C-alpha cells in the first residue's frame, strides 16, 4: 500500500434482526484503504458489499466493530454529526443517479454546497469546475431528463466531488449504463483517484469495471475473501 490508510476497519460486523431470525450481513471485517486508492468491492448479491460501503460512508451503522475514516470513528457520531461529516468528507455516486428532476445539472451539483457557508460566486466557481471536470460544462443548464444516462451519472459524480471530499463512494455506478457510458464514468472515477488523489470506493459485480480500480477486495456471505 503506497499511502497511509484513510479508512481503517476493525472487526466490523453487521447483523440484521427480523423477529427471531438474525441475518449476518458483515462478519468480522478488518480492512485498510489507503488515501488515493481506487478500491473496488466485489461479490455476489447479498455478500454485504453495499452494507460495507454504507457503513464507511456513514449512512449505516455496524452492530459492532470500528470504522475510522480520516481518524474519525464514524460509528460513534450521532445523526446530526454524521450528516455534517458526510457533507464535508464523502461524495456519493449511486446506481440510479438520483438527481433531483426539477433542478438543472448546475443546481443538482450546487445542492451540497447550500449547506456550506460559501457565497453564490464561490459556489458558482466550484460547480462550474466540477462540471468541467466531468466534461459537462456545456450541459449545466439542462434538466436531468434532457441528459443521457451517462451524462446524468457524470452530473452525479460532479455533485459528489463539488464539496472536495477526500472519499468518494460509488454503489454500482455503471449498473444502469451502456458499455460506452460506463467506460466514460469509470474513466472519470479513475481520473479522480489518480490525478486528484481522491480515495474512491466502488461496489461492483462487473470484473470489467473492477479492472479500472487499483485494488479489488471480494466479499462472500459477509466475509472478506483473502
Amino acid at each position: 500500500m503506497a499511502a497511509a490508510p484513510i479508512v481503517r476497519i476493525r472487526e466490523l460486523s453487521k447483523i440484521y434482526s427480523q423477529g427471531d431470525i438474525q441475518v449476518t450481513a458483515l462478519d468480522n471485517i478488518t480492512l485498510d484503504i489507503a488515501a488515493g486508492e481506487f478500491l473496488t468491492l466485489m461479490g455476489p448479491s447479498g455478500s454485504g458489499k453495499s452494507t460495507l460501503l454504507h457503513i464507511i460512508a456513514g449512512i449505516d451503522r455496524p452492530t459492532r466493530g470500528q470504522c475510522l475514516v480520516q481518524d474519525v470513528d464514524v460509528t460513534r457520531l450521532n445523526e446530526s454529526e454524521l450528516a455534517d461529516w458526510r457533507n464535508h468528507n464523502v461524495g456519493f455516486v449511486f446506481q440510479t443517479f438520483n438527481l433531483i428532476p426539477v433542478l438543472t445539472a448546475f443546481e443538482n451539483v450546487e445542492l451540497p454546497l447550500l449547506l456550506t457557508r460559501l457565497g453564490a460566486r464561490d459556489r458558482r466557481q466550484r460547480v462550474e469546475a466540477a462540471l468541467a471536470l466531468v466534461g459537462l460544462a456545456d450541459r449545466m443548464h439542462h434538466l436531468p431528463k434532457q441528459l443521457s444516462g451517462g451524462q446524468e451519472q457524470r452530473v452525479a459524480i460532479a455533485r459528489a466531488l463539488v464539496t472536495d471530499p477526500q472519499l468518494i463512494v460509488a454503489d454500482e455506478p455503471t449498473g444502469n449504463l451502456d458499455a460506452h457510458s460506463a467506460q466514460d464514468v469509470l474513466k472519470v472515477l479513475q481520473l479522480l483517484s489518480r490525478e486528484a488523489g481522491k480515495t474512491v470506493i466502488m461496489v461492483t459485480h462487473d470484473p470489467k469495471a473492477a479492472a479500472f480500480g487499483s485494488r479489488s477486495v471480494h466479499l462472500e456471505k459477509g466475509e472478506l475473501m483473502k
Partner: protein
Amino acid sequence: MTLSTFILKNALRNKRRATLSVLSVAVSLFLLVTLQVALRELMNPINDEGSSLRIIARNKVSLAQPLPARQLAVIERIPGVAAVSPFTFFGGLYKGDEKFTSFAQFAVDPARCLPLISDAKIPRDQLEAWLADRTSCVLGRMTADRYGLKVGDRMQFTGQLYPCDLEFKIAGIYEGTADDRNLMFHHSYLDESLGNPGTVGTWWVRAASIEEAPLVTARINAAFANSSAEVRAESERAFVLGFVSMWANIKTLITGISVVVVFALLLVTVSTMSMAIRERFRELAILKALGFRRRELFAFILAESFGLAVAGAVIGAGGAWLLFANLDIQKLTNGLFLLFEVTPRMLGLAFGVAALLGVVAALAPMWSVARASVVQGLRTLD
C-alpha cells in the same frame, strides 16, 4: 440557487397537484369565511343608540299571538316610557307575484312612532302627507331605489298572514336608519281592513334613557303578569336574536358546517402532503446522504405545506374579502343581508386555520422522514 428556490421548485414540481391543493384550501376557506360572515350578520343585529332605547313587547305565548290594543293605555303610563306605538308585521307579498318579499311592512301609529324612528330623515312635507293620509305609507330609501319607486307611486300587497290585501300610496321616502328597507303604514288602515279586531302584533316602546331601558322592560313584563295576555318585553337586539333563533339553532348549524369544512380540508391537505413526500422519499434519502440534517428536511416539508396552505388562504379568504367588498349583497340576497363584511378577525381566523393546516399536514410526512434511515430511503429506490 437558494434553499427557498429549492423549496419552491419542489412545491411546484407537480403543478396540477399543487394548483388543485391550493384551490381546495382556497375554496374551503372561502366557504369558511362566507359562513362566518353570514353568522355574524345574523347574530349581531345593528346596535346603535336608537336600538338600545327601543323595547319590543310581544305576546308571551308566541310572536304569532296578537296582543290586545287596550294595553296601550297601560304601557304609556309606565314610568320611563318615552313613546309607544303598535308595531304589527303585515308580511304581504309585493305585487303578489313575488315568492318572497325581502322588505318588511309594519303597521304603526304614525304620530306615536315618530320618536321611535327619530334617526329617520324624511322631508317635512312628506311626513305631513303621511300623517294626513290613512292609506299612505313611508318607504325606506333602499327599497325605493331597488324597485325604482318614488313619492306618489302606489304599492299593492297580497296578505299572507292577514286575510286582506292592501294598497298604499307612497307619501314619503326615509333614510338614515340602520335599516332603510322597511315600509311603515297606518295601523288604523290595517284595523279597518280586518274589521277592527282590536289587536296588535307587538308594542314598540322607547325608553327615556339607556339606563332606564332594563327597568322599563321589567316594568312592562310586570304590568301584564297574570293577565289574559301576558307580554314578553325585551330589547330590540334580544328580539331580533330571538327571531333568528326561530330558524333553529343557526349558530350551531353554521359552526358545525364550519368544523366539517375545516376537517375535510385537513384530510385533503394531509393526504396531498403525504403523497407529495412519499413520491420524494428517495430524494429525501439522497438529501440526507448529501449532508442535509433532519431539521433541514423538516423545514423543507413544513415550508412547502405551509406555503400551499397560506397560498390557499390568500386566494380563498382574500378572494372573499375582495368579492364581498365589491358585491351588492343586498340585491344578491334579495335583501336578506344588508351588509356582508369580512372583518379582520375573520381573515385572521382563515389564515390561522391555514397555518394550522400547514403544520398539521406536515406532521405525518415529517414523522416518516424522521423514522427512515438513508439506507431505508435508498432501498425504496433501488
